[in-house]
């Protein structure tokens, strides 16, 4: 409860901490992954998905910026331990002492791994075969793009993995590692980790949750920007200004960027609601768009804004840098269902 009050007062600016010298999230100073865009954003288990990195490379704005060879290492986890374990892939063999790091397992780990392996054995899968089943799919690429055939992930595809999860569960209900019921209609979380950057300069660790959803398949497009413009105090559109000049940024989205979709309903105990025929009960909901703002210099007033039931925040304030030169702005739009859009805007800061 005190945390609530502290949060309220912190948000109100009444209490705080001395973090003024720390880099803010909207301030881009070096290579950074801004998003991983999926086409299709919420694929079905029978689709092939293409993932593309959305990144900022300082060399794009400043040709003299220090840079190195780009690298991209992708790691696709058929089963992931999720955020509590930094998205590591489940590796039952590691718990038996045969894992890649050779660490000695605890009795509890052996017990847990033993249960999984025993269940797999009942399904006719040997420990060695299980190792292949759970092993992450690691790919090194020169470009920031991969394609994933969801019918063959883990060797058995998403549908196979889901069936395996149900089989391993003692009550036949597939659950995540935090205990939440997993429905293929709601989405199977395929975790894709990306280690990317510039050799010898910088590395970013990124994780993309590709929600593979076996449902009606409608409205699964990425949102799209229509415009992103800067305006000065007189309301005129500008492509730059003088140092420390304040500008207003305005964006517009292509119509239909916020899609409606059938949302599965859950009861008070977190169980999915079904009708008399056993079909899942759904309600139409509309996506909420979250905008993340970045700049390679100057100061963005709000690092995130939203368009949802309460707010329509498609404007932001921007103060140009103190020094003349180019500055690039990015806005990433997220629809909350795996959809992304990116738009950049280059501005020039001139001598006053």
């Amino acid at each position, binding site marked *: 409860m005190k945390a609530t009050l502290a949060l309220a007062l912190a948000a*109100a600016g*009444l209490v705080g901490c001395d*973090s003024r010298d720390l880099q*803010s999230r909207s301030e881009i100073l070096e290579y950074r992954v801004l998003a991983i865009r999926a086409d299709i954003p919420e694929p079905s288990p029978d689709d092939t998905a293409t993932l593309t990195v959305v990144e900022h490379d300082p060399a794009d704005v400043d040709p003299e910026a220090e840079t190195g060879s780009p690298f991209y290492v992708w790691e696709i986890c058929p089963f992931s331990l999720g955020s509590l374990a930094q998205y590591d892939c489940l590796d039952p063999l590691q718990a038996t002492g045969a894992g890649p790091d050779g660490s000695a397992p605890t009795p509890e780990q052996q*017990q847990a791994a033993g249960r999984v392996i025993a269940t797999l054995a009942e399904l006719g899968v040997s420990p060695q075969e299980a190792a292949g089943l759970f092993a992450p799919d690691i790919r090194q690429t020169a470009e920031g793009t991969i394609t994933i055939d969801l019918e063959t992930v883990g060797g058995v595809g998403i549908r196979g993995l889901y069936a395996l999860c149900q089989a391993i569960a003692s009550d036949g209900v597939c659950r995540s590692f*935090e205990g939440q019921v997993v429905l293929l209609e709601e989405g199977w979380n395929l975790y894709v980790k990306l280690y990317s950057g510039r050799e010898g300069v910088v590395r970013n660790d990124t994780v993309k949750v590709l929600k593979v959803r076996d449902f009606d398949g409608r409205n699964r497009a990425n949102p799209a920007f229509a415009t992103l413009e800067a305006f000065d105090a007189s309301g005129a559109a500008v492509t730059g200004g003088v140092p420390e000049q304040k500008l207003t940024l305005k964006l517009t989205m292509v119509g239909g960027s916020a899609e409606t979709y059938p949302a599965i309903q859950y009861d008070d105990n977190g169980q999915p609601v079904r009708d008399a025929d056993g079909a899942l009960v759904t309600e139409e909901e509309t996506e909420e768009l979250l905008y993340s703002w970045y700049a390679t210099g100057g100061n963005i007033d709000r690092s995130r804004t939203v368009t949802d039931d309460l707010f329509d925040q498609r404007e932001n304030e921007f103060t140009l840098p103190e020094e003349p030169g180019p500055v690039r702005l990015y806005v990433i739009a997220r629809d909350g269902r795996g959809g992304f859009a990116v738009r950049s805007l280059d501005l020039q800061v001139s001598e006053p």
Partner: protein
Amino acid sequence: MTSSSRTRAAIPSFLLTFLFATGGALAQDAPDVGGDELPEARPPAPPAAAPGTAEPVVVPPELTKFVEAEYPPEAFAKGEGADVLLRLTISDTGAVDEAIVVESGGEAFDTAATNAAMLFEFTPAVIDGQPTPVQIQYRYRFEVKQESTRVEVPVDEARPTGDLGGVALEKGTRAPLVGVVVRLADGTEAITDAQGVFRFEKLPAGPVVVTIDDPTWYALEDDEEVVAGKLTEVKYYLERKSGDGASITVVGRRVQKEVARRTLTMEEIRKIPGTQGDALKVIQNLPGVARIPFGGGALIIRGSNPGDSAAVINRHFVPLVFHFGGLRSVFPSELLEDIDFYPGNFGAEFGRYTGGIVDARIRRPREDRLHGRFEADVFDAGVLLEGPLHEGATFAIAGRRSYIDAILPFVLPDDAPIDFTVAPRYYDYQALYDYKKGDHRLRLYFLGSDDKLEFLLEQPANGDPSIRGTLENETYFNRLYLAWNAAFTDDVDHEFSLAAGQNQLYFAAADQIFFLVDGWIVTLRDDLEVRLSERIKLRTGLDVEAFFGSLNIKAPVPPKEGQQSPPLAEREVLQIKEDFFFLNPSPWVELELKLGDLFLVPGFRADYDKVLDDWAFDPRLSGRYDLVKDEEGKGTTVLKAGAGLYSQRPTPDESDDVFGNPDIGLEHSLHVSAGFEQRLTSAIDLDVVGFYKYLYDSVGPSADPGERVNNGTLGRIYGMEVLLRHNLRERFFGWISYTLMRSERKDDGEDDYRLFTLDQTHILTMLGQYKLTSQWEIGLRWRYVTGNPQTPRQGAVYAVDSDVYVPYFGSSNSERVDAFHQLDLRVDRRWVYEAWILTAYLEIQNVYNRANPEGITYNFDSTQSAPLTGLPIIPSFGLRGEF
């Protein structure tokens, strides 16, 4: 001679003040009153100590209920009078435990005086800040024709005469001054009675000079005019001299049987800097208690988790101790009698917690007359009204409400990204009824508290965009408390108490998190105390706790102590809605054995948890040995030790099948402690305790990915506590508290122990309060505390879908922030008016504005860090008016 009726026996010899001011001339050796709690008597102490001497400060008992003796009919018929000198033993509650005739006035008078005196009621004597049993001498005078406060002056028939009468009251409190000598210039004297009334009759008409010159009070001299044939009525208000008090005969203190029970009196509590006079916050200044970052209100006692310790009121559990987690206690300090703090090794009457206990006891409302109090500071304002209701009954009603919600709009920046729908506000309320008749006492209390906060975040939180929209929080509880005490015989005491009420905790963060616990709680205690012999006392009881209600939760699994948690947006949210019923009956038994200089308390407690279907059987033993005693037979060097087992149930979420593990059992701990107490002077005590606490079967994260938690966490806590305390004197009190401690945990599957999240190696508190004059007081508190452990971050992985960075955490609690030190100052100014007292105070926290590190803050991807600093210098002020 004006009175021929059988008049109320005045009490010119109830001269506590007079007696002691004259060196206790009438005092005699106290008899052996027997019993362990009143083991020994000592000769009367000398008059009140002068400043700087080492004599104890004493606040004498004041007679609050006088009972007229039945005049022996035969003697009355014959017009006979008599004086009976009694020695009264007054308990630490103010009741008269014993009345012994010291000088007989004849059998009939002795009996009448004794019977009446046994029904007197006093305010308890306070010595060294503690209510203390004392003996006083009391002369009961039987007179037929003359009221003793009425002094006749030789009459000059030729001159017209008039009467002069009135009342002498304490300035500010309006308490009657009893036994004070009122003099006229010609040496004529009258002595005030129990109501402070005095009277001179048949004085020659004309001017008179009235003086009151008493050691306890500032002298008064007044010119009055006696009018022929009339009564001139006067009212005198006398101001008490700074710290003056009468010496009284100490016959015993409340039995100290625990290894470490520390008692604070309200007089001390009110003036400790940095606590806003809040009783429960003062606990944080005692040894064994860790400092909470940002002044929070949790109790981290001897390295235990906050939930492992409890604050109880009259030994009954309350769900909430502080408003908004630390701003203010939910119960007004002025209605507390005192607070006992048990950092460990507490007796069998307490259980269900493996850490420590804070036991706050509500006092009996005052019964001499109506009293009121108003108090206001920067956070809130409160009122209290108390007084007698009917014969034997007193009442108190009190309430408090914050006005942060009224102030906040004026201090909130216009561009603040927050919009309060309900700005932070809290209130609490209390109604007390206390009835005494004979050996029975009935108490009926109703109390409650409500905290509410609701606001709209107008943009997504910087670190976690899923936190946005409306945030709501309301915490509410009420209790109806009933207690019946009865002394069936001199050796058998019984207390039955029952508390029942509602708890409600509600929290919602947009549609992401929802938490509603709506329950009823009934706690019942039935305690029996039987003195089996002079050396053996049996104490036993039944302590039952029952909760029932419903909960509706949609939230991620809360992290356990030492665990780090990803941002909310990356957590899976679980949901439950269910009814619950907890029943925990706990019988306990304890013996108090006095074996010469050794005092032993073996005890045993059994705790049953219905939900877990698990029993705990906890034997306990503590002992004290008077190694060196003073001439009065009181221990000046006392050795003490204790050992025992303690158990508690896991939190409800830990035993829940969705959020936790329904197969877990009770948690346990072993407490071992030993130490000594040394009375260095009559004013200064040293208390040193070494302790070891072993936690086993504690609930923590499981190494098995298939279960969230299990009973596999271990803990070890060891250290030493030192308390050097200068007890309350007329001008000064203070203490130095030092704790050297290490608290560690080892979770399931881990090979090594790690530091507890709030492990603090050194905790030093030095505080003192000095009365400069009767109007001005100043207090200082300085604290030095080792910085809290931190779990470092080593970068982060960017979760692009939720737009948050999930930190890579290093070894749990493997680093520390710099030490904390801070000076707080408090100045009180008091204005005493005839009928009321006004006090204003200024409190400055963090006087030298140190930027104390309370933690570490990181940039968005955990590649940069900076100290998270605490509160800067904060002045605050308050006012208190009382009558």
